[in-house]
């Protein structure tokens, strides 16, 4: 049998269990719409995800396939999200106090580090919204979902699950060459922001990151600009989005917002300690070319970390270093197992299954929701369902 054909069959066999599982995870079997547009959207996304898994297993390349999924999710997110909220509230891209009081504010994962201490000690979630299980963006749903993702892939959330991260991942890929070099110490910025927002949230009983620092208001929703204070906050959100999510990633080829500002990313780095997956360097194979140091989008690799064969705390398991290493020294790794060899292939395959399962759970919903709205626009002239 031809070697390529054999590889295709093996890859197809490896993809098949996921295809079966993702049939249920994507909700392909349980659409509620009377028309065909929703099932067509879900089916298209199901095919898309399974094709991507097949490609990544077949080629052995992780990061490029991941980036396609990740960036698609980030672009799709505002389309479905904004329109869904518009239908729920009746106003576009703004949250007003009536929405806060009535609990129609989606709970965002970035809020989790700020809310966890008050939730543990006082049983209060310092964020508007609802615990109502019927609301798919409820705090209760998101907290349990976050726990599940943390067990599956840990800090891998930031490169496989975050529906915002694709914006700066995409912008960091637009230029061929980095035009500016960032100081690696900047990775501590997110840790400082994390500590700051935890303390200020406890002190003010308000989610201070969301009120003052979140750049992703620009692709979700702003507060209604009803006072000078809210006008200032809105300007800050826009400036941070343009600066940290678009311009600096484009110039530096790094995910600047994730490294410097995101408190969730810093928090997830700590949570990642309990996760069995990490990326390791096989020191016996390392050519010391430092290509991984240069290319890592979150500056997780330094000469010191190369010496140890371990990544820095900002590593989000995107797999870029694994793909580009000329000596094949970087590997996906299960803690406790030997680095490289057959163990690395097994570790990568299991990691991919878990990461793709999460993507089928959240990313598929986001992309199919956007695709559904686009198909609605084409067929009815409106993106609204009501």
């Amino acid at each position, binding site marked *: 049998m031809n070697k390529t054909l054999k590889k295709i069959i093996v890859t197809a066999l490896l993809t098949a269990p996921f295809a079966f599982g993702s049939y249920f995870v994507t909700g392909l079997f349980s659409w509620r719409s009377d028309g065909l547009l929703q099932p067509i959207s879900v089916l298209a996304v199901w095919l898309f995800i399974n094709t991507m898994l097949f490609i990544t297993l077949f080629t052995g390349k992780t990061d490029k396939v991941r980036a396609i999924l990740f960036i698609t999710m980030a672009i799709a997110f505002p389309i479905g999200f904004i329109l869904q909220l518009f239908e729920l509230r009746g106003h576009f891209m703004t949250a007003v*106090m*009536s929405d806060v009081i009535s609990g129609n504010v989606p709970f965002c994962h970035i809020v989790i580090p700020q809310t966890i201490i008050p939730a543990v000690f006082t049983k209060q979630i310092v964020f508007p919204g609802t615990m109502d*299980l019927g609301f798919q963006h409820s705090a209760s749903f998101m907290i349990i979902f976050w726990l599940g993702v943390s067990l*599956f892939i840990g800090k891998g959330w930031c490169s496989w699950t975050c529906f915002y991260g694709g914006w700066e991942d995409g912008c960091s890929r637009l230029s061929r060459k980095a035009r500016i070099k960032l100081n690696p110490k900047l990775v501590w910025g997110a840790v400082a922001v994390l500590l700051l927002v935890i303390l200020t949230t406890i002190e003010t009983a308000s989610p201070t990151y969301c009120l003052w620092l979140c750049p992703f208001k620009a692709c979700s929703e702003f507060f209604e600009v009803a006072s000078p*204070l*809210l006008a200032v906050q809105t300007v800050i959100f826009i400036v941070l989005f343009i600066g940290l999510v678009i311009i600096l990633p484009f110039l530096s080829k790094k995910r600047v917002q994730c490294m410097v500002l995101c408190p969730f990313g810093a928090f997830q780095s700590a949570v990642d300690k309990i996760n069995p997956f990490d990326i390791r360097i096989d020191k016996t194979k390392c050519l010391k070319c430092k290509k991984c140091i240069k290319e890592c989008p979150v500056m997780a690799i330094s000469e010191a970390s190369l010496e140890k064969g371990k990544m820095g705390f900002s590593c989000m398991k995107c797999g870029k270093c694994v793909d580009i290493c000329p000596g094949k020294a970087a590997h996906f790794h299960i803690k406790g197992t*030997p680095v490289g060899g057959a163990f690395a292939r097994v570790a990568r395959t299991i990691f991919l299954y878990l990461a793709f399962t999460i993507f089928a*759970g959240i990313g598929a919903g986001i992309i199919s929701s956007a695709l559904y709205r686009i198909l609605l626009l084409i067929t009815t002239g409106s993106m609204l369902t009501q």
Partner: protein
Amino acid sequence: MNRKLSITIKALLGILWTTVFAVGGMMLFMGNRVLAQSLLIDNNVQIISKYTGGETSYEKDKGGYLMVVREPVRDGVFNKTKKSFVQVDWFAKESLPGELGGSIDIDSDGRDDLLVDIDIKNNKVTYEVYGSNIEGLASRSAVTDYIFKRDEDGKDALYHYRNRSYGGIVYKEGISVRIIIQ
């Protein structure tokens, strides 16, 4: 030999760790609703009262709609602030009348503390204060903090919404005001 055994044991523990976490994660995804109920909702983890309006103090059926007076909310996680607010809601299963309101006993002491008249059509609320501890109505203009108003004409004080769940029932129309108290 010992080194080989140690490597094998470590590898097996690593694979066991991965298996336990994969199964655990899958259980969290599949049992999201059940776990959210048992871990969070049954343990009384709630959205902070500052945003929801607080626990119900008492309800009054006004014939066609429901008036709900809440407990005073003193913002703070570990500390409680001196200034607080009381939220009053009016919920209707279908639609609220064009005008509503009346005397309200904020602190449940049997004496009315405030007279509120709400003109829903014109998005306007006027009020008269009887209780000495009442400062006025909170403005709707700020999400971060509540701007305290003493104006008689509290047109910015009205929070108007639709499809609000309260006590397990979805009300099609709702109105709330927040009354600032000392």
